[in-house]
Structures are given as C-alpha cells and as structure tokens.
C-alpha cells in the first residue's frame, strides 16, 4: 500500500485518553465519597440515630460538628446521610439520563413527521425551569424519598433529551448511519451500534454535570420538606433541621453544607476533566518558530520570499513533518508545491504564513518576505499588508452569521485602519475585479446566498484587497467542480499577471499546478524530491524522480483530444 497512512491517523477516531489534574482530583473525591457512603451507615448509624446525648452542643472534641436538638452527633449524621443523598441523586440522574437519551436518540431515528413533533415537544419541555417542574411533580406525588427521586428524574429528562437530540442529529445525518439504514439495519440497532457509542464522551460529561445538579435539587426538595421524612434523613433534611438553630448553634449546618459542596464539586471536576480529556487541543503546546544558524541554501537577490531550511517537528512525538525545505519566490511568480496528504506541503505554507498549528515547533535559517524578517517580531499590520491567504473550503472559511462586506473587510478595517466606507469601497473594487455579479449587493449578502465558486471569488477579492506581496493559496480549487475550478484558476492567473503579486500555490493535483504555476516543487514525506523549473515541457521524460513520475501518471486526463475551436465559453 502506498497510501499515506500516518498523516490521517490522528483525524476523527477514538483518541488516546488524556488524563488531567481535574479528572484525577474529581475521581479521587468521588472515591472518598463512595467509601464514606458505604462504610459510614455500617459503622456509625448508632451514633447518628441514637437519642440521649446532650442536645444542641456546639463544637466539642467528642462531637466536632456538635449535636442536634435530640443530641445526635452531626458529623455521624452527615456521613451516614451521604449514602441516602448520593444514591438518590445517582438514581434520579440515571433515570433521567436513560429516558432523556432514549428519547433524544429515538427522535432522530423516527420518521420525519414524528421527529418534528418530538423535537417541538422537547423544546416545549425545556422552556420550563427544572426546579419548578420538580416541585410540581413532587407536590402531585406527595412526600417521600421515592417521590422526590422520580420528581427530579422527570424534571431533568427534557434537558438530557435536548442535548442528546442535538448530538444525535449530527450522527444521524452521517454517511455511516445513512448507509446502515440503506442496508436495512433495524432502527434500535442503529441506535445501539452507531449513535450511542459515537456520542459517549459528551454524554458522560453531561451526566457528571446533571448529577451535581440533581444533588442540589434533591437536597432542595428535602430542605423544603418534600423529600426524606423522619426518621429517614439526607443532607437536605439535615440542613433544614440545622436552620432553625443557625443563630444559636451555627456549626450544626456546617456538616451537610460542606458535604453538599464537596460532592457537587467532585462531580463538576470529573465533568470538566472528561471534557478536557475529550478535547484533543487541551494538551497541546503552543506553536514555536525559531531561527537556526547555518549555511544558507538559497541565494536569490530578487526574491519576494526567501524560505531557507524550514523544518517542522511535532512538539510531543518529535516526528519530523517538514525536513529542511528551501525555496524562493520572485515578484510576479507563481510557485506550486505539489504532494499528497501528509507530504508536508500545507505545513510548509503555514510556516511561511506564520500560522503554524498548535503543538508544532518550526525552525528555519532564513524566512524573509520583501525585506521583513518573518523569524523575528513582525507587527501585525506589516504582516497584514504583505501577505494574504485563500483556503481550500470557502464554505468553512466564511462565518455564516456575518455579511460578506463586514467579514471580508476585516483586515482592511482592523489592521490597516481603513474606515468602514473606505474598506467597503476597496472590497467593492475587488468584487468587480473578480467578476462577481451584482458586486454592490454581495457586500450585504450572507455566505449561504453564494455558490461555492462565488464564495471563492469573494475570498480572493478580499485577499487581494490589501495588495499583498505574497498570496498563499492552499488547495483553493479542490472543493470546487471542474468548470468552476477552471474559472478560479483563470482568475488567479489574471490577478497575478495584473498585480505582480507572487503566489504560493498548494495542491495535490499536478494537472492543476501545471496549468497555473511557473515553477513547481514536488514534496513527499516532508522533503522536496524534485524541483521543476520548466513547467511548460513537463512530461514523463523531463521529470526524474520516480514519485513525480507516479504523480504524473496518476493525474486524470481525458484521453481524447477535443476540438480546439470551443475555447472561450467561460468568459
């Protein structure tokens, strides 16, 4: 297999679990609570329930948290109550999670009409405050532990249902679920095999948060007298009992108050810890760009951009992604870098653009753009004036909530201090230059109102609006149809010729690169394997490296010549 396995390994799959302090501390705290909840009722229930001690004691050596009105030790009562309280919260959370998740997932596997009704029902249900619903349900069911647990469970179902419905929405529209449906996999098996496992992480985080909430809510209900009834007790009832004596003996509410806070904090820490562990970016280091000394490999006095000895390593694994890559670009020149995923072509471009990804460390002997040393401190304004970018997917590069005029004139307004009117004027001229239809109207349109090709034209207009010395275009046509690709390439070529802006063009398609670029670098495994200076006569005979030959052979080409008289249809 010649497929570049390593580069995509990190993407999209289950990741190695990243332990973090919050998670460890939270789990240890939960462990302590669990042990207390099991051990305390077995060993301390005598002290906790035995009447006959001195009532209403303050803090004393034998009763560190005092005694209640019947002379029972508050420390023992608090510790013994942990079992009932934690169990009630856990059962309530478990019930609401089970019901809510089942509902949220089922809604997305149901036929469309039922789904619409279900989603509206969820929205309706979440609009009521949880605690209000819990009190109403508890009031209907009456007092008691079971009733309170059911009330809290019912009140939290809607929250679970809404969040899991949101998670399930994304998974249910994925290709693996639609494929499974087409293959005839029954809906409940799709839920168990595909939907639930793929939302496990966020659901766990949600459950941890919900447990913390349920704990407080249950204690709240017990506090107002709906929950555990004498002689049963939980932290809520202990708080309630202590409240009447708070003025004379404040220490008695300390136990249940601290216990509640401690347990709630433990659950939240676990939730935060899980969230951080699930986020691949939480453990990466900041990107670094350093200068290293050495014999320069590039001598080019006329160059707009000199990149000498770019090397990029992964900060944690130390794996080399780009290995000593050197090149220069002259004014008005289009330099192509071609290679497949994992070849290091985009990482190289990101070093030039000083947009290195987190967790990577880069070095170079020299990195100079039109007299500015990019390895040192560069004012943002200088960077904004000299360099601009066009990305692969104009759909994701644009913010769907902002009109084009605002977001595409960001650099002009914020970095180059143009007034809004001035910036719009420059952008408008750009829109005209890239031949967008209705350029004035486009300024006030949202991205979704434009086709993919139109968006990319608008992006190019924005990039060129600062009159940069270098335009970095990273696979700008890969997401586009062939006919639109041709139009965008034509546009880039024309802008390059008219403005003299140098272009660094990244692509996996040698056919595209050959059509646009003056010179081409072929990258493989982080190294430049071939430099093609004469692109016009590029063929199997003129290239030397076997990889270049392989790329050239792989490039899809229509094999029957076309009548040449139909040249100008696009303009």
């Amino acid at each position: 297999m010649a497929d570049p396995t390593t580069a995509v390994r990190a993407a999209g799959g289950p990741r190695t679990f990243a332990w973090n302090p919050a998670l460890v501390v939270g789990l240890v705290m939960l462990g302590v609570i669990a042990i207390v909840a099991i051990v305390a009722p077995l060993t301390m229930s005598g002290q906790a329930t035995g009447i006959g001690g001195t009532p209403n004691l303050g803090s004393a050596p034998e009763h560190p948290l005092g005694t209640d009105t019947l002379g029972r030790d508050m420390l023992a009562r608090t510790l013994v109550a942990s079992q009932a309280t934690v169990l009630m919260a856990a059962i309530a959370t478990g019930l609401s999670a089970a019901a809510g998740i089942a509902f949220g997932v089922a809604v997305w596997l149901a036929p469309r009409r039922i789904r619409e009704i279900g989603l509206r029902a969820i929205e309706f249900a979440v609009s009521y405050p949880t605690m209000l619903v819990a009190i109403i349900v508890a009031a209907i069911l009456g007092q008691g532990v079971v009733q309170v647990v059911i009330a809290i469970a019912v009140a939290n179902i809607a929250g679970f249902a809404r969040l899991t419905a949101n998670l399930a929405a994304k998974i249910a529209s994925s290709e693996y679920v639609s494929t499974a449906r087409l293959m005839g996999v029954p809906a409940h098996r799709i839920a168990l095999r595909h939907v639930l496992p793929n939302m496990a992480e966020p659901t766990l985080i949600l459950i941890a948060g919900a447990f913390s909430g349920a704990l407080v809510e249950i204690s709240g209900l017990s506090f107002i007298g709906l929950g555990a009834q004498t002689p049963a007790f939980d932290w809520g009832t202990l708080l309630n009992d202590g409240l009447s004596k708070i003025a004379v003996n404040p220490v008695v509410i300390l136990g249940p108050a601290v216990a509640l806070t401690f347990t709630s904090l433990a659950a939240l820490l676990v939730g935060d810890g899980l969230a951080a562990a699930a986020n691949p970016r939480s453990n990466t280091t900041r990107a670094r760009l350093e200068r290293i000394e050495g014999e320069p490999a590039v001598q080019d006095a006329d160059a707009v951009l000199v990149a000498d000895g770019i090397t990029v390593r992964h900060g944690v694994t130390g794996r080399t992604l780009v290995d000593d890559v050197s090149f220069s670009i002259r004014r008005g020149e289009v330099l192509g870098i071609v290679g497949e995923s994992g070849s290091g072509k985009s990482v190289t471009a990101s070093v030039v653009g000083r947009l290195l990804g987190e967790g990577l460390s880069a070095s170079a002997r020299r990195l100079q753009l039109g007299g500015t040393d990019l390895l040192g401190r560069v004012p943002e304004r200088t960077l904004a004036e000299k360099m601009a970018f066009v990305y692969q997917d104009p759909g994701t590069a644009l913010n769907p909530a902002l009109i084009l005029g605002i977001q595409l004139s960001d650099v002009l307004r914020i970095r180059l201090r143009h007034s809004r009117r001035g910036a719009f004027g420059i952008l408008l001229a750009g829109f005209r230059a890239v031949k967008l239809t209705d350029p004035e109207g486009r300024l006030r349109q949202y991205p979704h109102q434009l086709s993919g090709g139109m968006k990319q034209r608008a992006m190019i207009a924005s990039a060129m609006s600062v009159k940069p010395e270098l335009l970095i275009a990273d696979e700008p046509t890969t997401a586009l149809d062939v006919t639109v690709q041709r139009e965008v390439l034509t546009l880039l070529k024309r802008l390059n010729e008219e403005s003299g802006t140098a272009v660094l063009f990244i692509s996996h398609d040698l056919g595209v690169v050959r059509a646009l670029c003056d010179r081409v670098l072929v990258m493989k495994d982080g190294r430049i394997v071939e430099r093609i200076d004469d692109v016009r006569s590029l063929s199997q005979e003129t290239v030397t490296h076997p990889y270049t030959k392989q790329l050239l052979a792989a490039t899809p080409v229509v094999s029957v010549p076309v009548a040449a008289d139909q040249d100008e249809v696009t303009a």
Partner: protein
Amino acid sequence: MSASMVRVEGLDVRYGSAHVLRDVSFELAAGRTVGVVGESGSGKSTLAKVLVGTAPIASGSVEVDGVDVASADRAALRTYRRRIQMIPQDPFSSLSPRRTIGQTLAEAIDPVRARVTEHEERIGGWLERVGLQADMLHRYPHEFSGGQRQRIAIARGLIIDPHFVIADEITSALDVSVQAQILELLAEIKASLGLTMMFISHNLAVVQRVSDEVIVLFQGEVVESGPVERIYADPQHWYTRRLLEADPGSAGFSLAG
C-alpha cells in the same frame, strides 16, 4: 432476469418548488457501467437517491433489477435494497469511528446480528480482494488512510454480491495518486465480477477510466448521453465540451481570461 438492469423513463423529481430532475430517461444493460457527470446542483446525487428509493418521484417510471421503484412498498424496497448498494463519497464519514472494520462489514452481510465471528472468512477474503490484509478486520477506521478507508467502503458495498452498485463521487475526496489506485481497483473488480454500476462524478477524466457509457446532466436534464468513445471524441452539447475543456490535462484547457 432481463438484459436491462436499469430503465428510467420520463423521470421528474421536485423538492418543493425546485425541479431537481426533468424528464430523465436512460437504460443500462446488465454488466455495463454508466458514468453520470455534472456539477453540484446538476441532480446527479438525486438520481442516485431515486434509484435506491429514498427520493420522491414526481412522475415517470424507474425500474431497477425488475423492481418498479416508484410503486414498491416498504417490504419490497427492503429486499430490493439488499440487491443494490451505494458506495458513499466521503471515506472519513462513511465508516463509524467506534466500530471495527470487521463489525462494519459483518453488518453489511447481516444487518440484524452483525456477528464478525460468523463471517470472518468472507470478510477477510474481501479485505484481501480490495488490497488490504485479512487480519486488519479488528482495526478501527482511524487506523487507515483515506484511500484505505475507501477500499473498505468498496468492500462493504460489494460483499453481499449486489446486482447493481452506485458509486457516488467516491474518489473526489482523495488525492490524485490514491484516486488512481481506487479507479484501478474498481476497473479490476468490475471486469472480474461483471458488475453493473453507476459511477457518479464531476470529473470527466475520472468517469472515462471506469465507464462504458456516459450521461451528462445539466440543471436536472440529460443534455447528452451515449457510449464513452463517442462522447469524448465528438461531444455534441456545448456543456459537454465545456466540461471537457475544464479538465486541466485536456488539449482545450487554457487559463486565458
């Protein structure tokens, strides 16, 4: 079985006020491959949905493998869908990240039980058939490259010996060199199994490598159709010519603005 695998006549599809397919007619003989070419919005993916019975048919008749797709009831559609297969576009989202390759392929064989152990030999055989190794069945999708994943998706599509296969832009998310390998694999499997296939792509050069016939779709209409040799040598419709010229490797390609 009749010699004709797919027969579509006067097909119209509308989504609300949008007329997505207009009066589409074509026929595909068993054992042949038809390439469907067009840009985003041309209706080519909708055509695929019609053939697997997931798009509403406004009018016209669609008959695939002897089944009238327009009038088939749910039960008939369910058995019908076991005989046709769709290979999806994106190798990164078409495999469930939390299921091993073996589990994914076992589900294709037996959607209800999906036991890997019952079909291990068959799964291993197909993994080798698409250029992977039989013992990879315990691995998860993230351990494979994009090209390898697309090989797995192809194995999933073919493992139940479907009568008709629809490949929807299956190489457009891949690098050119990987794309070439996948096209080679498809051509080889097609020749050895005598597959009947619909190959959907926006790239004429890619379509040419695997197809016997071509349908060119433009704004929901078939503007040109016929054998590959004829279409590429002598395109009649301006839109077909424009598509051909947009190929960077074609003789007519130029960036003259």
